């Protein structure tokens, strides 16, 4: 396996422009001769489907949801970045690029990140034109706010429902193509395998979730836009159905998996409060614009937060990082919260810190706060039963976003020709830590503005042929997945799927979570292997394969997590440095900050699947032509 990033030559700011000019085009009359499969209808998938349909390709788009509008992107609250400099506060493409590179702790690919910043402005224009009701100023102009890791206000938002509104925009653009007949939507279908024939991606096998039937689909190119895999931790901020299956099965068919251990732990989630809890709810990072984070200076302080006087409060982020304060990046803020909790200073003895709006309410009035964060406050109250206007919120870090994913080159193509990967499912733009409000930006950049060009180039240069689904190879793939399903159903053991998933989640959180050590990771690898064995000996998958069976759906996903979890630990173990969200306790400065090792680890770790539990490491060196590698400082 060779990793060729295909980054175009020339100055950073001209790369994408030149590349677009140099790419081959498919003539308008020929576009309708090409079929493209897209898996996923989140921001990345829906925007790609709409744009490719508009160009004239025949698009088949798949989702396991009942409706394309339910993709996890719908849940994003805070906002989307773009370098528009509408606020006249010094933003620019270069600054957005630099903030993102630095935020990612210099572990992302320079050219990709620059391109992302470059197209960010067009994304906002596109969404406005579709009718996305972004927040406006009184003069009718677009409003902005700021997010962690940036000192400018470049985040566009629609109340606390930015993801929903952006997704509805992309979904509506896709609906227009459905009406025009260029896009065909297949809902309630789960992709369970990638069909690779002669080393090229030729199609997919899906399970019809209603009838249980396995269906075959072929195309000239396949795009996976299937989102992230934080649910490997069981408890995360991701929607219940987010999973790794599509990319994991593609990985097992030959697509390299890059930086699997880079998992973002988001600092502002509602802490764990019950033993049957199914997920952790994110409170938008935008709250940190006005909320102040603190704990008591005294260990084991069980007083009600409102009874703790000012001089006994420790605003630890403001103290440690005076420049960025409460808006320090996620990895830094999360670790700082863990530190004070580990010291025994958690809010009322819990694994939590306070997020306090008292000062903001005094300064701005309750009405302004209501306008800015009203729905988030309501949500907090519904879940916890406490009123954040009166009592500070309690928050704690939780697994949130996976920077790792399938390896892609500059054209977003994986190591399998014809297989493209977009949005959170790929690894490319965020390095070791993603800044807030840039995942939505990346999903839409990939779907609206990058794939439409690079897919055309692939089709025009490679001229892949279409393999009919009656081809015996297709049946071979289908047979394999039928056997796999049968195997799951025939274990007939004693343990429920969820109990195994929860156990895996605990191993991952304790040993592959916010802080990792060599010893812990080695233990994790062994424990995951044992659990995997346990699963295949002792799981009980109830029901049959011939109808809607949610137990079977979950079992397939957990089977994949049990393999992926091991790779995450292996990746974390081999990376003997701390960077971004990957914190190895052995590698820190005296003040407890992450200690990167650029001499030895300035590369993307791309793993090639050999057999279950066995991988080969390939390295893509990261070449920084424009930025100087620097120690991140938010002080």
């Amino acid at each position: 396996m060779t990793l060729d990033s295909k980054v175009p030559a020339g100055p950073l700011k001209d790369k994408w422009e030149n590349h677009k000019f140099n790419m081959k085009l498919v003539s308008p009359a020929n576009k309708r001769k090409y079929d493209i499969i897209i898996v996923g209808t989140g921001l990345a998938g829906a925007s790609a489907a709409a744009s490719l349909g508009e160009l004239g390709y025949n698009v088949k788009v798949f989702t396991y949801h009942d409706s394309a509008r339910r993709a996890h992107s719908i849940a994003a609250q805070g906002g989307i970045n773009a370098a528009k400099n509408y606020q006249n506060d010094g933003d620019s493409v270069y600054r957005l690029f630099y903030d993102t590179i630095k935020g990612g702790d210099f572990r992302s690919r320079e050219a990709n990140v620059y391109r992302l910043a470059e197209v960010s402005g067009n994304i906002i224009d596109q969404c406005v034109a579709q009718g996305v009701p972004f927040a406006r100023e009184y003069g009718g102009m677009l409003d902005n706010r700021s997010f962690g890791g940036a000192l400018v206000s470049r985040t566009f938002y629609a109340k606390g429902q930015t993801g929903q509104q952006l997704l509805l925009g992309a979904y509506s653009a896709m609906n227009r193509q459905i009406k025009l007949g260029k896009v065909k939507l297949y809902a309630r279908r789960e992709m369970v395998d990638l069909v690779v024939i002669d080393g090229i991606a030729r199609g997919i096998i899906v399970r019809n979730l209603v009838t249980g039937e396995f269906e075959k689909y072929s195309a000239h190119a396949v795009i996976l836009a299937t989102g992230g895999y934080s649910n490997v931790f069981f408890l995360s901020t991701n929607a219940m159905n987010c999973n790794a299956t599509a990319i994991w099965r593609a990985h097992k068919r030959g697509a390299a998996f890059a930086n699997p251990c880079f998992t973002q732990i988001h600092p502002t989630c509602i802490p764990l409060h019950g033993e049957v809890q199914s997920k952790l709810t994110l409170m938008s990072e935008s709250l940190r614009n006005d909320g102040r984070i603190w704990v008591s200076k005294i260990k084991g302080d069980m007083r009600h937060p409102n009874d703790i006087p000012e001089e006994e409060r420790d605003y630890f982020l403001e103290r440690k990082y005076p420049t960025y304060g409460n808006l320090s990046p996620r990895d830094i803020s999360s670790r700082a919260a863990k530190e004070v909790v580990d010291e025994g200073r958690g809010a009322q003895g819990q694994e939590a810190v306070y997020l306090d709006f008292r000062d903001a309410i005094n300064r701005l009035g309750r009405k302004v706060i209501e306008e800015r964060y009203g729905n988030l406050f309501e949500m907090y109250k519904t879940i916890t039963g406490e009123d954040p206007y009166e009592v500070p919120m309690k928050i704690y870090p939780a697994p949130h976003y996976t920077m790792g994913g399938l390896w892609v080159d500059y054209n977003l193509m994986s190591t399998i020709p014809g297989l493209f990967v977009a949005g959170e499912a790929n690894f490319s733009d965020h390095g070791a830590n993603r800044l807030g409000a840039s995942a939505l930006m990346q999903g839409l950049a990939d779907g609206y503005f990058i794939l439409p060009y690079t897919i055309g180039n692939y089709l025009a240069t490679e001229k892949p042929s279409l393999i009919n689904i009656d081809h015996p190879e297709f049946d071979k793939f289908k047979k394999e997945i039928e056997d796999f399903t049968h195997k799951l159903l025939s274990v007939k053991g004693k343990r429920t799927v969820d109990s195994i998933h929860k156990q895996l989640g605990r191993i991952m959180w304790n040993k592959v979570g916010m802080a990792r050590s060599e010893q812990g990771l080695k233990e994790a690898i062994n424990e995951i292997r044992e659990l995997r064995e346990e699963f295949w000996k002792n799981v009980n998958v109830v029901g049959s394969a011939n109808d809607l069976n949610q137990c079977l759906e979950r079992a397939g996903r957990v089977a994949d997590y049990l393999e992926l979890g091991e790779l995450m630990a292996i990746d974390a173990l081999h990376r003997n440095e701390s960077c971004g969200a990957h914190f190895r306790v052995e590698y820190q400065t005296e003040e407890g900050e992450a200690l990167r090792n650029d001499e030895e680890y300035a590369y993307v770790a791309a793993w090639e699947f050999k057999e279950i539990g066995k991988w080969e490491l390939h390295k893509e060196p990261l070449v920084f032509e424009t930025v100087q590698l620097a120690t991140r400082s938010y002080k």
Partner: protein
Amino acid sequence: MNNKKLNLTLKIWRQPGPNSAGSFVEYKVSVSPDASFLEMLDELNNELESKNLEPIAFESDCREGICGTCGIVINGHPHGPIPRIATCQLHMRNFKDGDTIWVEPFRARAFPVIKDLIVDRSALDRIMEAGGFISVNTGSAPDGNAIPIPKDIASEAMDAATCIGCGACVAACKNASAMLFVSAKISHLALLPQGQPERYIRVQTMVKKMDELGFGACSNTYACEAECPKGISILNIARMNRDYLVAKLKTEEVE
């Protein structure tokens, strides 16, 4: 936080498939008041599975009240008895020890049951495909600030756009009308300058599709507004009706 568990009797609708008959089945549960309604079902399912019984099929995804996936009828109310929240945000602290709770799927002709508590709501997508969009190609948009929009208009559009497409309005309506949903969608775009060029065609194609799909007519009972988890206002229905009338006067009948 309250650690005393609640003992409850659940009467849950079980229906193996679209063409089989369904019935209520009784379950006893003991649950923490801090659990959400869906977490209670998770627990119950875990218990059923460990006895090798088929779990109750129900849908949910974000569990944050925004994706619109969850939605069941609880004691006669879509999304349960507490106004303005989705099922996933309903917490057990809203129930009392000893309560009996009836749980059934959304019922409407246009929403056939697939299994247990899962219904097919794809008719709502068919309505959106009929015209719920602005025709603009990728890459041809003017600068976002070239279209100034007064703050109050933007927030009014936003209020309409808040609809999560859950279908509770349809389930709440005795005529199984989708008027609240459709009118929210129509209003969102009709309020914005970008939505003007197709405004009157849009209302016609969407209403026509809604009628075709077997949704009932609106007879102004306001049940939809009362049960909508997002508090979508029936003012949207009035706006839609007005646009529909104007459309009839303005344009040729659409095909």
